[in-house]
């Protein structure tokens, strides 16, 4: 019981610290000059790090979703709706959220560990003493990179998942790829794509800022690095799910059907 109270306390103190860290980010991000090379370097790294895992996941999401939904739709004689259903589920919800969760696991933990080890080995102190603001150089660049990279990855995952969905469709039906795409395009509206993609900017930001915050404030010792890394995955995943439920509600208000 005490442990539970401790961990709840801990969660709220992280959220408190995170809030002021986020405010500091918004103060710094609007101040040039920007470390463009550093941002690009991080984006490249993020892409390389996550490309294969999101490709596989994306394909399987589409495939499994298609295979699971097919018999249900068949029961109502509505198999023609299968492509549209896959597309809507993927674009509105599964693509953004699952990609974000994978991103949190892979990238969030990486940032936590990287900055954490820089903190405990005094590299961050060294940067500060050499009159370079470590917050700007290390944190701002990483958060910008994750914020821009996750939407790109999500669009890619959406496309791969549609491909997986097509495979699921042709297992049971005869359908040409161009007809499948036609059905997808008929079902999907802009008001499905816009919120689906735009929320991933928020998720990407969350992964970057949580990992950076925990790494930047890691406590001494290798234990501190490990903790920064795992805690960033837990906190950013939780925040992604929480924020998602709020955004879904808001989207339904802004884009009523």
């Amino acid at each position, binding site marked *: 019981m005490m442990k539970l109270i401790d961990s709840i306390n801990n969660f709220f103190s992280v959220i408190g610290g995170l809030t002021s860290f986020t405010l500091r980010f918004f103060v710094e991000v609007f101040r040039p000059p920007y470390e463009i090379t550093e941002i690009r370097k991080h984006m490249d790294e993020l892409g390389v790090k996550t490309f294969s895992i999101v490709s596989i996941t994306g394909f399987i999401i589409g495939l499994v979703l298609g295979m699971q939904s097919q018999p249900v739709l068949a029961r109502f004689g509505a198999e023609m709706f299968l492509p549209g259903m896959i597309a809507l589920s993927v674009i509105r919800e599964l693509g953004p959220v699952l990609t974000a969760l994978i991103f949190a696991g892979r990238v969030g933990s990486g940032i936590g560990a990287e900055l954490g080890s820089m903190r405990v*080995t*005094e590299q961050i*102190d060294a*940067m500060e003493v*050499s*009159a*370079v603001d470590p917050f700007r150089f290390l944190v701002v660049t990483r958060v910008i990179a994750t914020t821009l990279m996750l939407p790109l990855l999500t669009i890619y995952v959406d496309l791969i998942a549609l491909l997986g969905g097509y495979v699921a469709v042709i297992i049971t039906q005869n359908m040409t790829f161009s007809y499948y795409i036609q059905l997808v395009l008929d079902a999907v509206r802009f008001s499905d794509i816009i919120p689906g993609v735009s929320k991933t900017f928020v998720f990407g930001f969350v992964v970057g800022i949580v990992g950076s915050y925990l790494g930047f404030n890691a406590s001494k010792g290798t234990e501190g690095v490990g903790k920064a890394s795992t805690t960033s995955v837990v906190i950013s995943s939780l925040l992604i799910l929480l924020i998602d439920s709020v955004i879904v509600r808001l989207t339904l208000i802004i884009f009523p059907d």
Partner: protein
Amino acid sequence: MLKIENLHKRFGDLVVLDGVNFEVPEGTTTVILGRSGIGKSVLLKCIVRLIEPDKGKIFIEGKNIFELTLKELNELRKNIGFLFQSSALYDSMTVKENLAFPLLRHTGLTNKEIEERIKEILNLVGLAEAISKMPSELSGGMKKRIALARSLILNPKIMLYDEPTTGLDPVTSKEIAKLIIEMQKKFKMTNIVVTHDMVVALSTADKILLLENGNFIFEGTPEQLLNSELDIAKKFLSTKLD
């Protein structure tokens, strides 16, 4: 040049600095001795404001550093070189990138000039061949020398050395001691050297301070230390186990 007044720092119940006072005249070297864990690194970090003391003043070139804005503080930091006890090389960058980092941000040098400056400083620390290595490929002693090169690369007016020779063999240690003296003569540097290495201490110091329980219990020239009757001073100098 550098003056410290009544500096206090505690971590919880642990009193580390308890009203420390000292002054380092321009162009001289002050060596700080003291047992492990006594607060030498904490003292050095206060001087560059990596650690905020609880009380006290630090004057550098006549200005109290705790009254500076961040911008003024950073201007000041460009004139201070800090060699970390742990070297603190950026481990995602090559040796060359580590050395270029301050140059790219604080000087208007061209790429060619930066390259030349890097070669020059690497020759100075005797590690020209390490230029494209990653820090993880270097030995502890090599890291120390690269870190030394990085802290010297902007020709600082003040150098703070935190154990410059720990982990080095006696031959290289002497080279480093010579380098500290040479740099000081050449550029009129003001140095503070924290060390356990008596060769470095006695050869580089104009003044030696001995830190114990939050304050200095000895202050004097190397000769005075050699003739001191203080028990702890004798222990520092002795090569015998007793």
